[in-house]
């Protein structure tokens, strides 16, 4: 199962669009929002890897995101490490934290979900209560601007491009990973764990590897987030964040990488667009969430895919008629 030409077309069309976006809307707020989308996309891709590819439900992704964010912020602020070093190290922090969780990957379904939830609540409490390191509920302020080889990314457009590039690399990496031998093994595990084990796959190892990869990506997203807002508050890393990430993946379509990115965009941008309805904003958001679940099995990716096939079928239909006319 190689990555089909369609997958690569979608990937490069998306990356091209993301790269050109600043020219379409050169506005400070739009850039801020789009940077948030790029960061959210990484989180969603991380969970898609876990849920869509290996079939493990985690509702504690915010833990790795938060550890990466605080880790990177402390590294650049207190230790003075360059941002480009802090970014991968934040991924390492997420990965190491997830190693502590590896034993629980043998749990299934809701039990795994609850264990990740428990872990994320513990991480949240540490972020909130260890004031000497994290600033507690006052938050962590004074995170320096990101710097690349001595060049400060002061322009929101440059910073957006950087975050979008990291997200794009993650996307391409996951696309390659998904279609590698490792990815195919994970698909087998998701479809039937017992059958996968019987065919000689080391199921627990595969699942834990997947868990770690997802945590590394979330940790790196945390590093970007910390240097995007340059202020961290434990309330950004509650259980609610994990649920938001889950919504991104499901609304976009479980199993589809493009869907994860689309879902991230929807979850970040939609509440902003809904500001027009004022107090009813989140009410409408909740209703739309239920409605999308009612309409589409495969989330937005499924809906769009269906429309695309229908449009293609419409375009194809006249052909036999033309042929008969020619005959």
């Amino acid at each position, binding site marked *: 199962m190689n990555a089909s030409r369609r997958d690569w077309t979608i990937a490069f069309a998306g990356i091209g669009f993301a790269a050109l976006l600043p020219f379409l809307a050169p506005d400070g707020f739009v850039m801020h929002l789009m940077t948030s989308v790029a960061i959210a996309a990484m989180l969603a891709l991380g969970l898609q890897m876990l*849920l869509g590819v290996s079939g493990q*439900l985690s509702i504690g992704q915010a833990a790795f995101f938060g550890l990466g964010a605080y880790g990177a912020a402390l590294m650049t602020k207190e230790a003075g490490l360059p941002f480009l070093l802090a970014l991968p190290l934040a991924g390492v922090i997420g990965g190491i934290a997830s190693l502590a969780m590896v*034993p*629980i990957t*043998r*749990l*299934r379904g*809701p*039990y795994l*979900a*609850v*264990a990740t*939830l*428990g*872990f994320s*609540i*513990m991480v949240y*409490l*540490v972020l*909130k*209560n260890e004031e000497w390191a994290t600033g507690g509920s006052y938050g962590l302020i004074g995170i320096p601007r990101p710097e690349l080889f001595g060049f400060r990314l002061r322009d929101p457009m440059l910073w957006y491009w950087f975050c979008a590039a990291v997200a794009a690399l993650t996307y391409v990496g996951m696309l390659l990973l998904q279609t590698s031998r490792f990815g195919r093994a994970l698909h087998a595990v998701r479809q039937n764990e017992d059958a996968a084990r019987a065919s000689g796959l080391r199921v627990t190892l595969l699942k834990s590897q997947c868990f770690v990869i997802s945590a590394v990506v979330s940790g790196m997203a945390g590093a970007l987030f910390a240097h995007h807002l340059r202020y961290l508050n434990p309330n950004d890393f509650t*259980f*609610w964040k994990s*649920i938001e990430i*889950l*919504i991104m993946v*499901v*609304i976009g379509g*479980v199993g589809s990488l493009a869907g994860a990115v689309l879902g991230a965009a929807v979850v970040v941008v939609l509440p902003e667009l809904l500001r027009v309805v004022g*107090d*009813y*904003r*989140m*009410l409408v*958001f*909740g*209703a*739309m*969430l*239920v409605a999308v*679940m*009612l309409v589409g*099995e495969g*989330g937005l990716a499924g809906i769009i895919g269906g429309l695309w096939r229908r449009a293609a079928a419409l375009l194809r239909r006249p052909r036999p008629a033309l042929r008969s006319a020619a005959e």
Partner: protein
Amino acid sequence: MLTSIFVGGLAIGCVYALIALGFSMIMRATSIIHFAQGEVMMIGSMSGLTAVWLAPFLPAPVVLLVGMTAGGLAAVAMELAAYRTLRRRGVPLMNIITATVGMSILCINGARLIWGSEPLRYPDLFGVEPVLLGGARVPPQLLWIAAAGLLLMAGLQLFLKHTRTGIAMQAVAQDPDAAQLMGVNLTRTMAATFGIAGMMAGAAGVMLGSLFFSFFEMGFITGLKAFVAATLGGLGSIVGAILGGLLFGLIETFSAVYVSSAYKDAVGMLLLILLLLFLPQGLVGLWRRGR
């Protein structure tokens, strides 16, 4: 000291157990993690409070009944309006679970529009004079809540074992297809499951409100803890949910006093993760292992 901590833990444990019961019943019948269960509890709490506002002379059991009715109606409404349609369409389980999150967002924000975002104080439903219990002065509402909670759970057990609807619910939980072949009305039984689960949560809402406050976000974290408690006991098991809830309440209260009030939630979570590593099915795994 020990007695009053214990009664306090038991009371909060009853609240968790009642919500956890709902989680477990719904999980067993439909495999859904019902994330809106905490919000059902909040609706029960708010409705009970509204009833007291409208008629201050209402005795505590009536307020409890109002909360139960409101919770039950809310849960049935969710089932009829969304979950049933989703199940009929045969959408993946993840979609239904996400829809319950959407439902939870809807309820939280709807409640904020109706009842505002300030924490609302419950009147003293159960009197204020402390009761002497083994030399300790225990606030009366704790005793009332523990008693009412245990009574409700016992009542639920009787209902499940001895009424037609209760037995039908058990049958549907075990094997929906076989139950349907035996003439059980699946749609009605599912709605009844949600209704009973909602009633338990609604009662928990009135209890929790009278212990602390009522406010629009109260269901969120409490619902999560109850979900954890249900898992601690063993998802899908009624006895497990009761045990898990009571145990979780006691752990939380004791670790707030003896460990650290900032980390009281962490203790329960740590114990949960450790327990799941050794008993992946929760506490009920202890005596179900043989099967």
